[in-house]
């Protein structure tokens, strides 16, 4: 459920007049097949691998991190024989939330696929963007490397639970219409170990993370302006994912939640069982956008409260991909009791994602 959706809307809705517009496969319910579905799906317009999580340095300081790789098809003419033809783009985002800095550190990178410099391979997870990568090894562990001006993340993610197929066994609806859907699975409770480099110093870190892998060709309702999404690795071993899609009037267009307990029992919730209630908003000094950084989410009869690790976890990439959103580490309480840690994503609060 991520920001590039919005950019994709731009691509698809522009009446591009090229000779051979690329055609994409619609998302229809089908069982996911592994390891093939770990890999890239070129026939779909958009795809991403999205890791969020909490880290702890050796001196018990908490850090939030996010590593994302997108693969996105453009509407460039399919007939162009050039190796440079920008038919697919690879985009990477990495961010680090350090309460001591109290401002999100982030890095981003984009390139057209090709020349072995940037790719998202089919068959198993293997994404590369210059020296950034996100790879799934034969033993199921992921390795990733990203670097920016302020930090470097070099992490290994080790699965501790089975895959979490979202919604209808991995067929995830995003709106009232059947074509508004994606294929979507998560890997919660990934054990993280690795190194964070800050100011030339290598800090060994440990923690837990959440991976989303999602792909689609068409997603959102035409009325949608943004969404609120959250996921949590709960202390009792269960995993929660919840989102709502907001319309122009600020009201919920669609919503979904899935909760899997430690023993693997999956419960999913329908849109009318879910409601989001802002508790506190934070106005960004960078963009003047106002985000509900503290949120109360009601799922059926359980009340979850999300509290941010720090307020300023806004990601401002107006210089490149033109997306401005809030993506931050949060702690969860369930009915007032500490329940776990996760990530909250708030999009569409800055000029309706500048569309």
């Amino acid at each position, binding site marked *: 459920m991520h920001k590039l959706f919005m*950019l994709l809307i731009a691509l698809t809705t*522009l009446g591009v007049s090229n000779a051979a517009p690329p055609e994409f496969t619609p998302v229809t319910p089908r069982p996911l097949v592994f390891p093939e579905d770990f890999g890239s799906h070129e026939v779909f317009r958009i795809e991403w691998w999205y890791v969020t999580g909490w880290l702890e340095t050796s001196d018990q300081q908490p850090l939030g991190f996010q590593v994302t790789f997108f693969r996105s098809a453009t509407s*460039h003419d399919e007939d162009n024989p*050039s*190796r*440079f033809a*920008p038919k697919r783009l690879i985009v990477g985002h990495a961010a680090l939330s350090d309460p001591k800095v109290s401002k999100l550190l982030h890095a981003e990178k984009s390139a057209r696929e090709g020349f072995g410099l940037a790719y998202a391979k089919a068959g198993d997870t293997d994404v590369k963007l210059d020296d950034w990568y996100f790879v799934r090894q034969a033993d199921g562990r992921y390795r990733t490397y990203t670097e920016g001006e302020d930090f470097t993340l070099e992490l290994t993610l080790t699965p501790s639970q089975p895959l979490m197929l979202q919604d209808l066994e991995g067929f995830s609806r995003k709106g009232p219409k059947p074509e508004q859907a994606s294929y979507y699975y998560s890997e919660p409770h990934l054990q993280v170990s690795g190194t964070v480099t800050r100011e030339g110093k290598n800090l060994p870190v440990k923690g837990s993370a959440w991976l989303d892998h999602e792909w689609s060709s068409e997603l959102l309702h035409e009325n949608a302006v943004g969404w609120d999404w959250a996921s949590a690795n709960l202390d009792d071993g269960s995993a929660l994912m919840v989102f709502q899609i907001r319309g122009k009037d600020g009201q919920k267009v669609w919503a979904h939640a899935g909760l899997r307990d430690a023993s693997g029992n999956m419960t999913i919730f329908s849109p009318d069982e879910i409601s989001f209630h802002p508790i506190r908003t934070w106005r960004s000094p960078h963009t003047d956008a106002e985000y509900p950084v503290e949120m109360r989410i009601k799922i059926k009869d359980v009340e979850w409260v999300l509290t941010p690790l720090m307020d300023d976890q806004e990601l401002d990439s107006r210089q490149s991909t033109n997306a401005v959103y809030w993506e931050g580490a949060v702690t969860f309480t369930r009915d007032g009791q500490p329940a776990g840690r996760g990530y909250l994503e708030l999009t569409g609060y800055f000029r309706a994602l500048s569309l």
Partner: protein
Amino acid sequence: MNRNLLFRWLTLGEWQAHRLQIVVSIIAIMLGIAMGFSIHLINTAAVSEFSAAVKSLSGQSDFQVRATQPTFDEMLYPKLAQHAGVAQASPILEIQAAIPGKADEIRNTTLKILGIDMLRAITVTPDLLGVPAEDRPFDMLMEDAIFLSPAAMEWLEVKEGDALPLRLGTKTVTLRVAGGLVRAHAGQRIAVMDIGAAQWHFDHVGVLSRIDLKLKQGISHEGFKAALERELPNHYLVIETADQEKRIHNMSRAYRINLNVLALVALFTGTFLVFSAQVLSTLRRRPQFALLRVLGLTRKQILWQILRESSLLGIVGSLLGLGFGYVLAATALRVFSGDLGGGFFPEIQPSVQFDPMAALLFFALGVGVTLLGSLMPAWEAARAHPAPALKSGSEEIALAGLRKPWPAYSCLVLAAILTQLPPVAELPVFGYFSVALLMIGGILWMPSLASLFFAWLFNVFNRLSSGALAGLALARLANAPQQAAIALSGVLASFSLMVAMAIMVASFRISIEDWLTHILPADVYVRTEVRQDAVGFSPQEQQMIANAAGIERIDFIHSLQITLDPARPTVTLIARPIDLADPGNTLPMTDDVLASAELPSDAIPIWVSEAMVDLYDYQVGKRVTLPLSDEPQDYIVAGVWRDYGRQFGAIQIQLSDYQTITGELRVNEAALWLQPDMTPTRFITLMKALPFGETLTFWQPNEIRAISLKIFDRSFAVTYLLELIAVGVGLLGVAASFSAQALRRIKEFGMLRHIGVTRGQIYRMLALEGGLLAGFGIGIGFLLGSCISLILIFIVNPQSFHWTMQLHLPWQWLISMALAMLIAAALTALLAGRQAVSGNVVRAVKEDW
């Protein structure tokens, strides 16, 4: 206060009485400074604009990797992108595309298109990104989108959303103008599009023109460059972006320096006029200064008086010159663009920038030169014995020093020696010194030469005739030769410069005409719209052209730019069928040729232009390597040919050899000889019916000749202008010195009138004097000018442009200019004298001075 009052009285009195001479002096200084300053401004504007434009094209890159040929395999890109030390590699494909219907026979009408990967370029050349419409953010990646600089939009008369047809080879592509650029240099015509789209649309799939590299922080540039050069095959060039300046500088250096020298020539002529005006005016006032000395002005006061007067002239003249020069530069840039028609700076439109430092320099130069011009006579006037100086007729004594000819001889001898020296930093520095010394020596020689000549003429005349007036005129010239010489030297300076320029330009023009006839033997030439088209004609298309009716013979030609030295501009490589037995049948060879029997079998023969010998030491018989193939291959310089088209060098090679070595079967030009029953016009109509007929451009030799000569004349327009100014300045000098002398001779005329000489006779005498003097000046000027032209033709041109030419004298033009100058000088003398003769002659006799 008293001292200033005295200065004011003396200065104002003098100036009010001699307004014309003052105005002439000011104009002379003004013209000299204006020419120098305007050419400096034009050069600076053009070069800084050009280098700024080139710099903006390379953005913030640290290095550019190019190949010796225009394009190279794109697989170098991933290697460089992953190279240690490289932070970003930005691949670029440069295309020169034609605009259908925009053809112009002289100006460059291609559009430079940069195919870029926006996601890579964003950190290297951020200015070069297209700015898409707000609702189409991804147009930078679209295959049908092109982004134009404002100047390009204006030139092509298109706006965002319009369709823009572009042509390369025989193919026409229509792209959509999707927006402007983030930042383009004012006046710079460029277009930007996606690199993948550019490769596809312009048939350049698989190749790049350059890769811009940005290094990671802390990487040593020298170390990186050395390492990369070691790793890459040697047909790749690793160019530090900072070095580009040098290359740009080299490209136009000879041209700019020659213009600067012309400006200096104008300044020199102006200086000379100022000098002679000051000498004459000081001489005229010699008795006045003597009187002031008697009345009690010290030497220093006299010296100051003269220097202050002349510095005032210098200041006024220089200020006017700066203003006029600025206007001149602005006008020239607008009318002729930055290269003054020379074609060195395409794609930019420089505007003149006022440069305070240069203005100050030229101002100081103007004032300094004026002061210098009056220093010598001022010194003499201050040192003179007042008692004898009070008496008129003492001026010749003052000038006696000029009669010594040895400084003139030493100048001339030194000039002759300097002609033998080689160029300095590829510039004919000594050649120019030699020209300057010739001028100075010639002028210094004038007094003694004039004395000898007129004395001889007087003697001859006395023996042959008894015409009283002519005798008077000659007697005066023979007996007051120093003053005559000073009046003369203005004529001498301007006429000799004019002769030198005329001979050089004529020789050059005739040599070019001959050369064009030689290099254009065919009846019709055909090519695509872009010169040295990177795509050109495919073998099938060549077949279709060759199959056309009425062709007796067809030569296909492939030409391209290759780089042999990254610090120098590119060299043109021309592959065409060459008559091995006698290359002179194909090329305008010099005598420097290897006989075909002497050619070794293991080396491919090439024929090089004269510039290659000078710049790269490609001597005949020398084995060289050329970056045409991956496998090493020896080439041998088989001959040297004359090339007036490419001063940076050109190499000819057999087309078959070229095709074997490179595997490149495309060509970009064809020379066609027609059967006797086929006319070029009919043939062109036939060719236009080919499937790609409308993309063809046809040239007939006479058209090319006409166009080439038009370009030639245009680039020499500045020379003509300078010549005219030199002549004008020379005539001003004649007018100034004659009117000065005529005023001083009022008494003489009065006496003549008293003894019964009519006014008409005095006029005739004056005209005769003026004519004789000018005639002598013109004669010597002709000799001097011819010598200078020899230096220009045989030393300056080969050393700065690396081509030789044959000497041709434009007799008709020279004679008519000489006559015009003679008549103008006689008339000037007459007019200047009229004023004096028409005054009160009785009074004139009474006055002593």
